[in-house]
């Protein structure tokens, strides 16, 4: 008997081609991938209508497993490719999947300008607080003081809040979730993909192999428990004092606003400038 899970698996995964996947057992990337697939399925998009673009890193390997139009671009640059695809064929739903280093270190410039430009793209950022694929070096979201393979004496740098960066840069929709709060994650991704304008979902995810192991969270379960304890619903944050909020981060929808759509504006320019 075929279950709902079988249906989704058969419809969306390139199961006969590219499995088993490259991720470590217990990696949060699988949870993110499943959540993305459920969100697209609930929206009711056809596989042909979706483009999934990624950069380089563990999260960057996600597109190869999913039966959309997929591309695995250069490190940090997936939003630039996504921009070209969307402008060339606005009928496509274009989602870019990135890691924290991919999106905010090497791709930081593209990220803030994509948010400012407000082209209708969805950026999903898997924030595992470390460069996993290259062996666990500190990233722009590694906490101050944390141990990584390039901060053996403790990280001297301070972490970005990706979601707040996206809000400030002008994104139309910004949400933050975790791989522990999966139902909320499905909702955030669904809203982000449906949103007309640049939308961002930052997902706190576990890299127990490269990050947790060196920071007293050595397995997926301890990292999940850490997310459960440290994530605070946005509505509760206002009622909490600074001390209680230390080491904690809000989850939920940070912003959901309307801004003029780039493609509609451009179409107006085309109509007024037409060759005659």
């Amino acid at each position, binding site marked *: 008997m075929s279950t709902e899970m079988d249906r989704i698996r058969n419809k969306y995964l390139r199961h006969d081609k590219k499995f088993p996947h490259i991720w470590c057992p217990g990696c949060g990337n699988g949870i993110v991938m499943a959540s993305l697939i459920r969100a697209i399925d609930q929206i009711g998009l056809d596989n042909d209508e979706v483009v999934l673009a990624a950069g380089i890193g563990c999260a960057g390997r996600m597109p190869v497993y999913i039966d959309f139009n997929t591309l695995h671009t250069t490190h940090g640059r997936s939003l*630039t490719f996504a921009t070209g695809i969307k402008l*060339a*064929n606005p009928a496509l739903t274009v989602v870019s999947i990135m890691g924290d280093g991919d999106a905010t270190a090497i791709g930081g*410039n*593209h990220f803030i300008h994509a948010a400012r430009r407000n082209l209708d793209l969805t950026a999903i950022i898997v924030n595992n607080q470390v460069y996993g694929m290259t062996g666990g070096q500190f990233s722009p979201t590694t906490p101050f003081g944390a141990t990584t393979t390039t901060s053996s004496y403790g990280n001297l740098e301070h972490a970005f809040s990706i979601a707040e960066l996206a809000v400030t840069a002008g994104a139309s929709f910004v949400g933050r979730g975790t791989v522990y709060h999966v139902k909320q994650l499905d909702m955030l991704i669904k809203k982000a993909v449906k949103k007309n304008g640049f939308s961002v979902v930052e997902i706190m995810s576990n890299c127990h192999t490269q990050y947790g192991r060196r920071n007293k969270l050595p397995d997926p379960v301890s990292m999940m428990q850490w997310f459960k304890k440290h994530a605070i619903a946005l509505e509760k944050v206002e009622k909490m004092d600074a001390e209680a909020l230390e080491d904690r981060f809000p989850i939920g929808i940070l912003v959901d606003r309307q801004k003029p759509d780039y493609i509609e504006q451009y179409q107006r320019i085309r109509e007024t400038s037409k*060759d005659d």
Partner: protein
Amino acid sequence: MSDGECKIKLLQGNEAIVEGAIVAGCRFFAGYPITPASEVSEQMSMRLPEVGGTFIQMEDEIASMGAIIGASLAGVKSMTATSGPGFSLMQENIGYACITETPCVIVNVMRGGPSTGLPTNPSQGDVMQGRWGTHGDHPIIVMAVSTVADSFEITVHAFNLSEKYRVPVIIMSDEVVAHTRESIELPETSKVEVIERIKPTVPPEWYLPYEDNSRGVPPMASFGDGYRHHQTGLIHDQKGFPTQDSKEIQAFMERQFRKITNGFQEIICFKRFMMEDAEVAIIAYGSVSRSAKRAMREARQKGIKVGLLQLITLFPFPKSPVASVLRQCQAVIVPEMNIGQISREVKRVNQFSCNIHKINKINGEFITPAEIYDGLLKIA
């Protein structure tokens, strides 16, 4: 521009590139401001919406290159334009266009380098960067323009080659050609040959995006066509998925070069002037070939039997037209606004007793006809 309108225009090289691109079917341009290429962006921002296309100014040249590859993957002919510092930034994603065999055209209006160099002075210092700027072994086509008329025609040809062979094509202009205004008669659009990429005709479930064939150029589906496939900067198998299999890697790499070798006949473009009875010759390209032509005429008046080989395709290097000149002549002179990037290639081809002389100017000034003429007097 509609048919019937006066087609004689006074354009600068940068503007002629824009007109050539639009006639060739370019409908997407992404760029970042830089001297002396900015007029290409400015003109594109006005012209593309008129023809239903899209212009976007990106946050840097890395992004511009990514955006044009994305647009091309979605089926729209795409171009960007820049100069030295921006061209350096583009190299990363030019490699991605090479490995994914994505058609696109990159205009590099050369200025003095390295680094910020001489933003408003001419140079030909990026020739080797055009060929080998991105890492790894890769085929690429590099073409040089020398006049406003060239800028139009070669841009059309660059798009055609890019679409036909699924390879990025670099157009090397320079500050002199880019900013010189000349009258140009634009051809009727319907009379210009425009080549479109070949798309798959098999049912989607049979489509192999990187399948080999007799031409070595696989049909290319666009995202959204119903041929869902995967594009990656990793070396990939015929299905487009990453591979570590040494046989598949070898076959993939060999096909990249074979498809270009197969097309030499139409990829290699050059012009010969007064070569029939030439005893000495000038081999030049870009704006310098204009000074060379004038020097040739003056030397002819003095009775020196000199000809000119103007290279248009710089890479793949036009071995046989160069070899035929070297076989015929006792000496050639290669004037360049660099330290000898093409003269070295000429020497590599020289299996004959031809003496190869160089004129190299790297002080930010153009090479004058008199300088080449003086060179000719010494070798003739």
